């Protein structure tokens, strides 16, 4: 999954002329890369990731995902792209607390219209793969932080995405859990999945193949 952006700007509304989060950045990510986006808080890392993940739109600039101009796609096609091609892992997990671990993993498959038996089977398999065998029925509130993030990783893999976007995936985890999650992400990257990870941890960034350093909404060469 290749990502190609040029002249991306994002200005948030507020104040007299708005608040610029990104100021015209251009970069490319090749299929199969592991890229870390680093920089201090408020430099626009998460905004960039949201734009790459089709959760937000830039104020100006172009963005092509695997050669398609995604900014011109209608909303439901972008939803489909998020569902089938992109997997998200967030710092605060973003699991639905009323659902069990397995049900959380099923969510993307549910929107893909998979039948429930196949969905269950795949959810079990993915949870086993991230080391959560036997915890399928637990709700996120009954799991530790590390376990929650592993559920989130299993969820992001549900529809076999080609691009994983991780926004500070270890930000809320202890060091042991962080290492586990990083190991899983590196493993996925080795399988050929493109991974883009936002972090401000230099050690973690060093694990990535390439670093994009952001500073005040611009790429730091």
């Amino acid at each position, binding site marked *: 999954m290749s990502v190609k952006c040029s002249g991306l700007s994002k200005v948030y509304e507020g104040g007299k002329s708005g608040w610029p989060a990104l100021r015209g950045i251009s970069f490319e990510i090749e299929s199969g890369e592991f890229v870390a986006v680093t920089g201090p808080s408020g430099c626009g890392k998460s905004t960039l990731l949201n734009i790459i993940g089709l*959760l937000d739109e830039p104020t100006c600039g172009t963005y092509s995902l695997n050669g398609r101009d995604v900014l011109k796609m209608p909303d439901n096609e972008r939803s489909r792209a998020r569902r089938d091609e992109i997997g998200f892992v967030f710092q605060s997990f973003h699991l639905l607390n*009323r659902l069990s671990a397995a049900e959380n993993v099923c969510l993307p498959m549910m929107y893909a219209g998979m039948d429930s038996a196949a969905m269950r089977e795949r959810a079990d398999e993915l949870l086993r793969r991230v080391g959560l065998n036997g915890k399928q029925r637990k709700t996120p509130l009954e799991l530790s932080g590390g376990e929650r993030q592993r559920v989130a990783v299993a969820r992001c893999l549900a529809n076999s995405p080609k691009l994983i976007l991780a926004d500070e995936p270890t930000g809320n985890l202890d060091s042991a859990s962080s290492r586990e999650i990083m190991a899983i992400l590196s493993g996925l990257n080795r399988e050929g999945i493109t991974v883009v990870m936002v972090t401000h941890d230099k050690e973690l960034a060093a694990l990535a193949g390439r670093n994009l350093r952001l500073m005040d909404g611009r790429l730091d060469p």
Partner: protein
Amino acid sequence: MRPFLNAVKTGFAEIKAHKMRSVLSFLAIAVGSVVFMDAFSAIFLTYERLEKQKEVSGMARLKISQNSSRSWSSPDGYVQPPSITYEDALAFRKKFPEFYMVSPSDNNWRTVLEYENRRLVASVAGVTPEWTKRDFVYTLRGRFLDWRDVEEGLRVCVLKKKAVPPPSDSATKSVRKKYDYTAGFDTLVSHQDMLGKIVKLDGITFTVIGVLEELPVSKRPITVLESMDQEKILAPVTTLVNFGIFRSHNSLDISVDTGDERNFDEALRSIENFLRVRFGDGDFFIIENQLERIRDKISSSVKASLMTISLGLLAFIAGGIGIMNVTLATVFARTREIGVRRAVGASRGDIMLQFMVEAAMLGLIGGLLGSGAGYLWGVPAKIMLGLSVNPIKPWMPLVSIFIAVLTAFLFSIYPAWVAAGLKPADALRAE
């Protein structure tokens, strides 16, 4: 189908997870449902009674009677105007064979009836078999007058047996009592089987050949043309004329059903013409256009029904606004969840569907509860409170539930649209 089933599943989980919120939504819709069902059954009753009334009374009705003002308005003193005799009525019938009913009648509101050693006052009407064609709201025991009775002027009669009056307050009761000069007659007929008995009317012997039992009020259609003459005894019009039981020179009334509303005006003109030819040009008779009265009555009933149904609809709108409020609050409470669902691939349509299905489920459960409560209010509660009970047909709760679901569905469009319009990135940032 699958997205819908998923939305239903999520909806159930949500309803279960937020019990208080759900109960309040149910109540909002249920109240609407109760009021609506009550309105519905009231309207249905009116409609049914109107239909029955059309069937029983007919529409194209008119009544010909002597213009009594003509007798007294002459400056030269009392003038005897021409009167309608039985022969005139026969001629009228012959002239208009296509009419559904031509019923000549007259009455004497104060006749003395003698039976065994009792003497009672009753009103008597002279009629023909055509009398039964309209406004016949009785069950008959024995037989009614036939044409032979009329043609030969036989001394036979049919007595009316009064139905048990509906419960009324003491004021109405005392008024009724004050003017009920035939109470003795009613008591006699309701306590004794008069069929086949011999009675005397103003000293002349008659045989009772039939008893007409009035239908109870609840089973009677709305009678628009409520008869002013509460005749208790019916006898052949010829017999009463021959034996002088009417006042001399009495003119018969003729009740007519032309059988067809459409050429009613034409029929009216033909009748006027007939009267002019037969009795001369003197405005001696009044033709009462009863079709107009029936139409007025029907339209006022329809208006009253619309009032009632608008109350029911208002109740639903109130319930719908309740649902809208709840759904909107739900959307804001679940903004982060909407973000998560959007991030994992839910489309705007999926999000809209989810909230609308959830609201429709609130409507469905509210409608079910409301219909149950509506039934309890409509029948047992009203009986306990002594209110009049309207019939509840099996399809009424179904319609009421359908409208509850529809209301909830419609009122959830806006909140669902708000939910679907949230930007995923903004929604994820929400607390």
